[in-house]
């Protein structure tokens, strides 16, 4: 492994929260006595060593210090304690087109922005055509940037940032902006950088991206590193921190007192019977649904679907019609013998249906319920399962 590209040793960043900020000399003199400011540590004792070519996912709840860490690493903010050492050119996709001047043309802005990012004029000339082609702005490159659409603006900023041949790429939620084709382009570019041996530090809230893209995951909470290592574990760690583990059940719109509905859900290990929030690839998983129906309701069936990214159903399991007891409740248990060994984060959705008419009485989704870790990125999802009604 090559020498570390980024070394942060004992990095802390303190912000002073001024209740009344003196921005002028007069105020500073007047406020001198009563200047009430509170210290707030956005980062505390962060030790991070990132080797060349690593892709590190940086995740954490809002306000955990992710963006502050990126700004400290990129030299925009100075750390209050500790040191940061960086080897190589940093391109940050923090603020695309931050240095653009609306009065200048696209061409002039490319040269200016590239100069700010550390390129010589000759280097910029070499990359210029590629930049314009990547941004798909050939016909508009000599128009003033103030006339660009926001999409064109971001595309040009992104094109410059990725063409300055950075050694280190800092990515902060860029995937949240831009349309789908632009996001795909971003991801493709990131993959290209990975192959080229570029070090990437990636901040995102899209947890399913972390195991897909990163070789390492770092979880920040209240400015401290909670976890540094396996990306899937990192995502899991954050999920338990956020409390978005099992029960994010939203009541189905069709649910009513007079219709069958999902009353409770339990996830557990089928062998031990112990309740469990997260599962991993290869493990067995059991899910029990309590269904409540008005007395005398017709038989109903439960459908459970394993969903992948963007809630796409990947495997659908239907139970046999259930026969509710005299109080109208029934419980069905789905058992999955072995969760798929494909990298990713899966969730499941459940619906109570009328087996004859296929009418859905109630449907709920449970986001990010289990994770699967395996060696493969792609493969056939094969889920072996059983469903049985249980008496409680």
């Amino acid at each position, binding site marked *: 492994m090559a020498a570390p590209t980024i070394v942060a040793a004992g990095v802390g960043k303190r912000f002073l929260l001024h209740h009344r900020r003196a921005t002028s000399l007069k105020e500073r003199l007047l406020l001198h006595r009563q200047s009430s400011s509170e210290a707030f540590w956005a980062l505390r004792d962060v030790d991070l060593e990132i080797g060349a070519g690593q892709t590190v996912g940086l995740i954490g709840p809002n306000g955990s210090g992710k963006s502050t860490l990126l700004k400290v690493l990129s030299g*925009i*903010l100075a750390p209050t304690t500790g040191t940061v050492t960086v080897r190589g050119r940093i391109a940050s996709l923090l603020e695309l087109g931050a240095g653009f001047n609306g009065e200048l043309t696209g061409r002039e802005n490319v040269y200016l922005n590239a*100069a*700010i990012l550390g390129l010589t004029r000759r280097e910029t000339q070499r990359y210029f055509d590629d930049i314009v082609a990547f941004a798909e702005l050939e016909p508009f490159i000599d128009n003033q940037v103030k006339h660009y659409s926001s999409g064109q603006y971001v595309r040009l900023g992104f094109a410059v940032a990725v063409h300055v041949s950075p050694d280190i790429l800092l990515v902060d939620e860029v995937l949240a902006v831009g349309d789908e084709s632009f996001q795909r382009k971003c991801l493709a570019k990131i993959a290209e950088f990975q192959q080229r041996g570029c070090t990437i530090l990636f901040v995102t809230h899209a947890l399913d991206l972390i195991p897909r893209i990163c070789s390492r995951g770092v979880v920040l909470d209240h400015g401290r590193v909670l976890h540094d290592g396996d990306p899937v574990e990192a995502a899991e760690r954050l999920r338990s921190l956020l409390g978005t583990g099992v029960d994010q059940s939203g009541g189905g719109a069709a649910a009513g007192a007079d219709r069958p509905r999902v009353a409770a859900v339990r996830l557990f290990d089928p062998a031990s019977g112990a309740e469990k929030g997260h599962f991993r690839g290869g493990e067995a998983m059991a899910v029990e649904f309590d269904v409540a129906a008005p007395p005398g309701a017709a038989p109903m069936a439960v459908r459970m679907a394993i969903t992948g990214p963007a809630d796409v159903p990947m495997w659908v399991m239907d139970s046999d019609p259930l026969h509710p007891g005299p109080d109208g409740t029934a419980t069905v248990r789905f058992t999955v013998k072995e969760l798929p060994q494909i990298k990713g984060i899966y969730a499941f959705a459940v619906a109570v249906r009328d087996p004859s008419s296929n009418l859905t009485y109630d449907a709920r989704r449970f986001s990010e319920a289990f994770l699967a870790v395996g060696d493969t990125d792609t493969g056939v999802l094969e889920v072996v399962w059983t469903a049985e009604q249980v008496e409680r």
Partner: protein
Amino acid sequence: MAQVQQAADARAAAQSRVRLELLTELVRKDLKVKYKNSALGFVWSMANPLLYLAVFTLVFTFFLPNGVPRFAVLFMAGFLVWSFFNSAILDATGAVVGNANLVRKVRFPRVVLPLASVGFAGVHFALQLLVFFAFLVPFYPAAFGPQLWLLLPALAVAVTFTVAMSLLASALNVRYRDVQHLLEIVMLAWFWLTPIVYPVTVVRDRLAEEGLLWLFRLYMANPMTAVVVASQRAIYNHPVVTVDGTARQVLPAAGYGFYLQWLGVAAVVSVALLLVGRWAFRRLQADFAEEL
């Protein structure tokens, strides 16, 4: 491997060191933005000195004649370099604050911002000087003598002093926005305390009459005075003029020793101030992204 590391270190340094390319690119941007959609473009940069020239020539040769022959030459010799200093300082004061979006988001050497302001003013100064010399060729050929070399040390000191003041003003203005307002007033007072619209000998003679000649040393210690007086000696080649049969000193000395001596003092002050300015800028720049 070591080579790869070195190349990476060089690229890292390119993002934190002041590079001439970045500086020229920023100056180019400022010029383009300023003269975009303007039909006359650069010609406008001549408007300001021409206006001052017209007004002061009218006042000091007609309303309040000061008896200096070819007053226009003496005035312009000092005014152009003052104008460079003045516009560089006022522009640099707002340079960091005005580029807040860049400072808060991008890694680059912040010190290029005030330096670009100096460069921007320098481009205008060079053009104005060029036009001025073009006028001197037919109307004041006496300017083109060996004394013109004095302009080189004068300009060197002027640039050093301007850079030093720009660093201080731009860094301090991030913390205290008062600097901007304060400077607008200070620069006006400074203009009148520098011998631009009146000959420096007037000050010397008045102070001598009052028996305060020691104060003249203090007056000359102002680096801009040394620069302006040396520029006047370099271009206005009539240190002593004869008006109505009596000899009159417009400039304090016919030789060069006086000017070089005071330029030396100004150079020491400027370099000291430059070190202070650089130190202050480095110290304060760590907080720029937070203060803005």
